């Protein structure tokens, strides 16, 4: 009998259906990957199993966990089951932990809730569990607080809490999305190890197909609350007949078609020389505090028509570098030049000209717009940088033109940003950057927050704009697959320095720096993983 058996699960909130007759099974010691784009109902499925649906939700169908009918349990009974039989790990490790409680107490709390043991006993138990998730007692005593841990270590604590009672079922909802790729690889290894050691059934909910391909035994694909596809990894990822799954897989490894005749210019558009940015360090009672060097003598050049990727993990200084390049922060040493001119400069007219040539698109397509401004106002915000400022009908014509260029309608100009989807908002953000006809656009994780299929379309749009208008791009991102598919050259940043630079193909094929090698090995690459798995299967029939 299967560990978890879901039959005809349907959930609706306020009469609107969220999940439609969903059926799936999970064996003990098995990893099931649940894939889908935002709004597909994958998180709702996880919440239904854990009995954590919002109060207004209505559930029908059957959920059976190891012989217990979860679909008809009361909240009190559920309190007993959660933590003991079902462990849950969420995306954000910082908010999942209580900041004022030591990690030992947080793990011990779960133990004491489900088992009548004394404090000392529970603490010993917590110690064992933390050891097990890779936080050894010597370096991670029980009295440490969450804030003194890194993101990956915090996620380990969250996992320790979830598995402390040796649950039969572990639900992980985007457990590695907020983590860097190297940390992600470690956490995925930990999951694999736990599943084998404790014979746990793991449901891994994620938008990242590569993560599922890497560790799951079986996968299901969801869309609009329906289960479209399920089966073994090879069945779903290699030989599916479902058009949606196919489209999703194509989007994940999408490479925009580029103009073969595109020529990279000879003179640099942007030139960064020995730039240094420091932040004041922790204050000391006596004596001077050591400043923290976020950007350490970085030099780079971007040529006309060139697409450059700047990759690195969180805290490597890439955002600080970007702010300096955009003229939002001044460098403490070194200089930034746009078309050979000092940037930023005191001369107001010159400054306007330079501002025109460098623009930016940020990560969060919603946060990047003033929520109280209409699209036409948002786009025309950059008009004041232009040589001649269009007014009245001309302004409107210009807005329509730019909207048309990014594939939006003229009528969209009268709407507010919240009325659009994420992909549309990102188009508007690109439209805004295009107003001044810039020579270079910096894209700060500009496609990271988007769903796979939308991401593919935005990348196409960017490629087309670059080919047509001759814009250079600086992709600042942690996502190596994006960088690989669209950039000509790549810069790898670590601890405020650029450790490796070279043509994208060369760096991916033959990384020189040890950090780059580590980064590339950790990054899940869907094609590589799938062929490896196929080889494994062929080797062990």
């Amino acid at each position: 009998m299967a560990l978890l058996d879901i039959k005809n699960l349907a959930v609706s909130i306020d009469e609107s259906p969220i999940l439609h007759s969903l059926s799936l099974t999970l064996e003990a010691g098995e990893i099931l990957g649940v894939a889908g784009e935002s709004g597909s109902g994958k998180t709702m499925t996880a919440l239904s199993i854990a009995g954590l649906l919002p109060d207004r939700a209505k559930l029908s169908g059957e959920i059976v966990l190891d012989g217990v009918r979860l679909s008809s349990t009361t909240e009190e009974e559920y309190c007993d089951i959660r933590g003991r039989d079902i462990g849950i790990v969420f995306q954000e490790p910082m908010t999942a932990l209580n900041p004022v409680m030591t990690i030992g107490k947080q793990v011990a709390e779960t133990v004491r809730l489900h088992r009548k043991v004394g404090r000392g006993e529970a603490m010993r138990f917590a110690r064992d569990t933390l050891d097990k998730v890779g936080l050894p007692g010597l370096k991670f005593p029980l009295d440490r607080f969450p804030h003194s841990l890194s993101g990956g270590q915090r996620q380990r604590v969250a996992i320790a809490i979830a598995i402390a009672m040796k649950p039969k079922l572990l639900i992980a909802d985007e457990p590695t999305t907020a983590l860097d790729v190297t940390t992600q690889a470690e956490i995925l290894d930990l999951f694999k190890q736990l599943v084998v050691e404790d014979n746990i059934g793991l449901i891994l909910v994620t938008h990242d197909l590569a993560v599922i391909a890497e560790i799951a035994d079986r996968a299901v694909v969801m869309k609009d609350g329906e289960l479209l596809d399920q089966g073994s990894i090879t069945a779903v990822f290699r030989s599916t007949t479902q058009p949606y799954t196919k489209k999703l897989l194509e989007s994940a490894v999408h490479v925009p078609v580029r103009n073969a005749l595109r020529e990279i210019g000879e003179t640099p558009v942007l030139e960064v020389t020995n730039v240094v940015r420091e932040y004041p360090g922790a204050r000391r009672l006596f004596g001077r505090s050591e400043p923290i060097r976020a950007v350490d003598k970085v030099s780079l050049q971007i040529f006309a028509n060139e697409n450059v990727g700047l990759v690195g993990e969180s805290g490597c200084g890439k955002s600080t570098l970007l702010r300096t390049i955009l003229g939002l922060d001044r460098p403490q040493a070194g200089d930034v030049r746009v078309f050979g001119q000092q940037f930023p400069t005191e001369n107001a007219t010159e400054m306007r000209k330079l501002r025109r040539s460098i623009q930016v698109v940020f990560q969060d397509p919603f946060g990047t717009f003033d929520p109280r401004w209409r699209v036409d106002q948002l786009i025309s915000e950059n008009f004041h940088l232009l040589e001649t400022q269009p007014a009245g009908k001309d302004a409107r014509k210009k807005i329509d033109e730019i909207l048309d260029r990014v594939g939006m309608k003229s009528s969209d100009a009268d709407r507010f940003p919240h009325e659009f989807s994420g992909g549309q908002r990102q188009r508007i953000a690109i439209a805004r950057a295009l107003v001044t006809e810039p020579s270079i656009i910096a894209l700060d994780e500009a496609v990271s927050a988007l769903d796979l299929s939308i991401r593919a379309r935005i990348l196409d749009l960017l490629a087309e704009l670059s080919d047509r208008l001759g814009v250079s791009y600086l992709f600042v991102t942690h996502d190596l697959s994006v960088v690989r598919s669209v950039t000509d050259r790549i810069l790898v940043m670590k601890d405020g320095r650029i450790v490796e630079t070279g043509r994208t193909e060369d760096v991916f094929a033959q990384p020189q720096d040890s950090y780059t090698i580590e980064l590339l090995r950790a990054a899940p690459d869907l094609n590589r993983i799938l062929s490896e798995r196929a080889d494994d299967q062929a080797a062990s029939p």
Partner: protein
Amino acid sequence: MANVDTTSHAAQIKSDEHSAVTRRRSRMTLGFRIGLILVTAVVATALVSFVWTPYDVKGIDIASKLLAPSLLHPFGTDHFGRDVLSMIMVGARSSLAVALIAVGIGASIGAPLGLLAAARKDLVGETIMRGNDVIFAFPSLLMAVMISAVYGPGVVNAIIAIGIFNIPVFARVTRGAALSLWSREYILAARVAGKSSFLISIQHILPNLTGLLVVQAAIQFAMGVVAEAGLSYVGLGVQPPMPSWGRMLSEAQTMIGFAPWLAIFPGLAIMILVFSFGLIGDGLNDRLDPRIKRAR
């Protein structure tokens, strides 16, 4: 076929969301309307009191003192035999004037100071906030005592005292919220567009703070009414024989056992005014937010 189904299903969800929003919206508009009607009623009462009141508010009539509410005196009479209804009508003037002007002074000086302090994180911003702390250290009552000591008691000085007290309140609220807005990406985008911090403050920060400021104004308004009451009680606000809701309430304290109407009616008046400003504040907040579309 499956495709058609999912599309209609998505449309269904959309329309449900839409109706939920409509329902919420109509409820908010109702509150806003009630608030508007009540405030208009109070303002009308204050205006009417200039030309007509049922009785003369200064007319002392010991013979008819402490009468319970009746047809002749709907709200009863006080210990001097003055008609409570007439006093409340006249009192509405000073309550409205003191609280509104004081909040106006506080917001119009405090909010720009807060914006400036948030935009300039250097010495200028620091100086503004420390200056605020100094003002904040004096309660409005103490401020009024000082001002009265110099310029003599009266309504105008009470307004100034409460107004000054409101400045740091608005400055702090504005600065705090503005600081968090400054780190938003759309502000970064505006900076990349080359906008000065002055323009960003006016075009982006301030409009996004309106909701907060309006709500704060409603709270400060309520406190203003109470502060006016307190000042009038110690003789620093509205001078007798001009009635004031606050002083009526304070004077009623000692007689609450045998003449409860003396406390109930001014109390109700204050409550209604504060409540209706709260409703208007909420309504304005929603109306000014384009994310909640208005039903037209």
